[in-house]
């Protein structure tokens, strides 16, 4: 069970004041939250890396949290930002190594977190672009496979993914 919003917010305020114990506890909670947040939204083998990158971002940018505002929307904005970066990096660097994604077991709470966050972003870009991004960057299909499955040319798939990622980057703070 992840700590509630008020507790997280209080722990973060203490961490900004230099309380190491509160900070360690907060980061542990944040880690759990992120693991659920990214569930089904990245290649499982790379989830730990993504979680660590967000934890480092939280550490480096902890001064940007305003203690008078809720903590989770702040964390979610940073997590979304890193997720879009991750999707870009997957596309650039590891395209050939991707394998079919495993389907991790998950609770309803996991799904809820994902749906409130990353799925909602994908739902706001054109369906074709969202589908191609999911296939290539999350499920690990190659461009050729995605082209075959979608009936588009390989270059059209690349253009659609590129455009979709640009749109996702602009949606990082959107709540609806």
């Amino acid at each position: 069970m992840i700590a509630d919003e008020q507790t997280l917010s209080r722990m973060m305020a203490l961490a900004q004041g230099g309380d190491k114990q509160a900070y360690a506890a907060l980061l542990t909670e944040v880690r759990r939250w992120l693991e659920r947040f990214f569930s089904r939204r990245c290649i499982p083998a790379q989830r730990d890396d993504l979680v660590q990158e967000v934890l480092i971002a939280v550490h480096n940018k902890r001064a940007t949290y305003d203690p008078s505002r809720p903590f989770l929307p702040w964390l979610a904005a940073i997590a979304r930002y890193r997720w879009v970066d991750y999707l870009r990096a997957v596309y650039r660097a590891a395209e050939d190594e991707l394998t079919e994604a495993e389907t991790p077991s998950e609770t309803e709470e996991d799904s809820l977190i994902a749906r409130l966050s990353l799925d909602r972003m994908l739902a706001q870009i054109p369906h074709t672009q969202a589908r191609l991004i999911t296939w290539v960057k999350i499920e690990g299909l190659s461009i050729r496979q995605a082209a075959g499955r979608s009936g588009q040319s390989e270059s059209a798939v690349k253009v659609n993914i590129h455009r979709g990622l640009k749109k996702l980057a602009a949606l990082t703070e959107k709540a609806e």
Partner: protein
Amino acid sequence: MSRSTNELIREMADELTPVRSLRLRDGLARVAGALMLTLIAIESIAGLWRGVWQGEASTFYILTNGLLLLLGCAATSTVLRMASPQVGNQHEGPRWAFLAVALLPVAALPALLGHDHPVVALGSFHGLKCMSLSLAAASLSAVALFLWLRRGAPVSPATAGLHLGIASSALGAGAWGLACPLDGDVHLGIWHVLPVFLGALLGRLALPSLLRW
């Protein structure tokens, strides 16, 4: 990244130092300071136009500079808020102010086209001078906003760059406008507004890569 997440958490907790959270009022104070310095520089180099206070300025002059400063304030507030990300943040405040400013060239167009010599009416020499000086007057605010965003965590660098360009150029054009005694519709509507479009373009194209973190 091979080290374990537990180890990473332990290391980050060990090296924790107190930080002062980014506060909107601190950012506002910095930009206000930059604008004040800009106005002092304009006063000492070119001198602010005293005619404004003696009732000599046209309505269009008041409207143009007022709208530019309003747009500058709206976009500045947005840029400062973008340093502290939050799902649910809205950054659409400056949109209406920008559209209002964009109406100024449209309002100037009939006067320009109705003129016997439109090219002369355009007054390119004074116009170009005002445009360049407006952009120069934008530089201090731009630096203040840029440094603020670099300290922060803007999660939409493209939008942040665009708003930074609009904010600083609108403040710059508004500040320089207080020194320019040319208060005709064409001059103000074209040459005092053009820097905002240029600033927006520059911010959108040049800044995103510098704002990524």
